[in-house]
């Protein structure tokens, strides 16, 4: 109980004092997970849309693959990315292992299936006749897709929340490909693991509160956009 109280007090102390290391870790977490979510959306939105709207022979296979990807354990992603980026690995020459870029790559692999899969299911929930109606009103294919995205705004923003939530909170992949290096690849989740393993519960709780606060604020903004006029 004392640990918890100490932790909360320490958290406020760190928050209000603006501890440079905590600020750096927080900013890196936001930067890495924000970028990973953005990249996932850039690829996931069009690919999910394509799978939802276009019928082609191997479509079911790709949908199954994406759905499986939504349940990928972060440590498995971390392992795969490690193998590829390892010094002797196929992409070792890029010297990305233990860099923030490596964490971004791993987090994109975690968030992308979620963005694509949830886009796919969001669009499939719409009345399929709506597409015909939009084309019948003279919409170009691109205009049709934009209107469909607007119509599926609620579940699409839910997809964005889920994608960001999954990467800001994952620890396995960040730890494996980032290495949790102080001043370089330490993010909130890896820092919490480290502090806990050192028995420094107060710091761990402080960092956890910051992590929860970030998750809450991001969700608050997205939810207010999502629920506008509803």
């Amino acid at each position, binding site marked *: 109980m004392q640990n918890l109280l100490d932790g909360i007090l320490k958290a406020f102390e760190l928050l209000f004092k603006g501890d440079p290391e905590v600020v750096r870790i927080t900013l890196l977490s936001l930067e890495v997970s924000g970028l990973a979510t953005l990249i996932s959306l850039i690829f996931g939105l069009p690919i999910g849309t394509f799978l939802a709207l276009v019928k082609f022979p191997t479509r079911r296979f790709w949908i199954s693959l994406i759905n499986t990807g939504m349940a990928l354990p972060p440590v498995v992603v971390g392992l795969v990315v490690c193998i590829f980026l390892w010094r002797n690995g196929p992409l070792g020459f890029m010297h990305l292992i233990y860099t923030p870029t490596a964490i971004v790559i791993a987090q994109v692999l975690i968030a992308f299936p979620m963005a694509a899969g949830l886009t796919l299911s969001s669009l499939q929930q719409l009345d399929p006749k709506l597409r015909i*109606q939009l084309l*019948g009103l*003279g919409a170009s294919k691109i205009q049709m897709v934009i209107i469909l995205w607007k119509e599926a705004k609620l579940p699409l923003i839910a997809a964005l929340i889920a994608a960001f939530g999954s990467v800001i909170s994952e620890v396995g992949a960040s730890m494996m490909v980032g290495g949790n290096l102080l001043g370089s690849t330490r993010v909130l989740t890896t820092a919490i693991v480290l502090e806990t393993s050192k028995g420094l519960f107060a710091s761990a709780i402080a960092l956890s509160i910051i992590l929860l606060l970030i998750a809450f604020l991001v969700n608050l903004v997205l939810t207010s956009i999502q629920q506008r006029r509803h």
Partner: protein
Amino acid sequence: MTTLLELHNIKVQAEKTTILEVDELTVNNSEVLVLLGPNGAGKSTLLQVAAGLKKPTSGKVYFSNQQNLSDLEFRRKVSTVFQSPLLLNDTVENNIASGLKFRGLHKKEINQKVQYWMDQLHILPIAKRQAKVLSGGEAQRVSLARAFCLETKLMLMDEPFSALDNPTRQGLLDDLRTILMRTNQTCIYVTHDLEEALSVGDRVAVLLNGKIHQVSQTQEVFSHPSNPEVAAFMGVDNIIPGNVFGLDNNLLQIQADHTIFEAVGDIAIGTQVYICLRPEDITLFNDDQILKPSSARNHVSCQITQIINQGPFMRVQLKSGFSLTALVTSRSVKEMGLEVGKTVLAVFKASAIHLISSGKIQ
């Protein structure tokens, strides 16, 4: 009359089954062509092909004066109204503006057209309302305004009122008829409802099992169906096969079972025919009743097998070697004491019979 749209040798297949086969269909400028047929006949498929929304497996669809349009150019010459209004999650006026926005029109012009068509369809008071809170009738008015404001050459309507209750449907049909007449809008109107077809159509194309069986002026399809299938769909309950065996007083003599019918027509003696008789053209008399002299030439003695209540009318099923159905007012049924098993006289004029030649000579 000039042709606006032409469809040639259209074939649509789904999983190797042919669901639509239309050799030729033309839509004339300023006409309302009704595609009439039962559910599953291929009406909606044909409409989507005509709208450029579905590619036929083979065949061509084109505007008579512009044959080489891109898909988008083609679609922008057409507007569509479906059974479900399929409105966007937005206000009424933004929904109506959607097609105009796709075409990149200026905001002022969009606003002008939207206001005008909301007024025409009596939905100005609900302009700012969210589409999802509208009633079925209001939503379909929005859908109509959205299509009309595009002012396209051709408008396509796929059973637009079939999901509405009867008073709402009648109100919308009246308004639609008025607008179609005033604007001279060319329209293909899909329905399975005979009354709707009669009230809006200039011409009717009857589609059965994916094939067009008859294209004629609306009244012509109703009074002179071209084959027994069309006749049955048009509500001709009595279709009796017979054989023309003679001509007497300019009336054809036709034998069906042991009964001789007299009918007006121009069919060669010896031809096998179908005698088509609408149930409302048959008058029933008690068989002991003394008939006044009348122009009704046909008298058939029958036994009542079933009486079905249809509100103000009763459908009376009769048997006399062949089956006959007559439509009688409920009051007559009561006054005449009609009941199952009773023998009655079915009387009808020679001119009430429409003969369809089977093409076979005996």
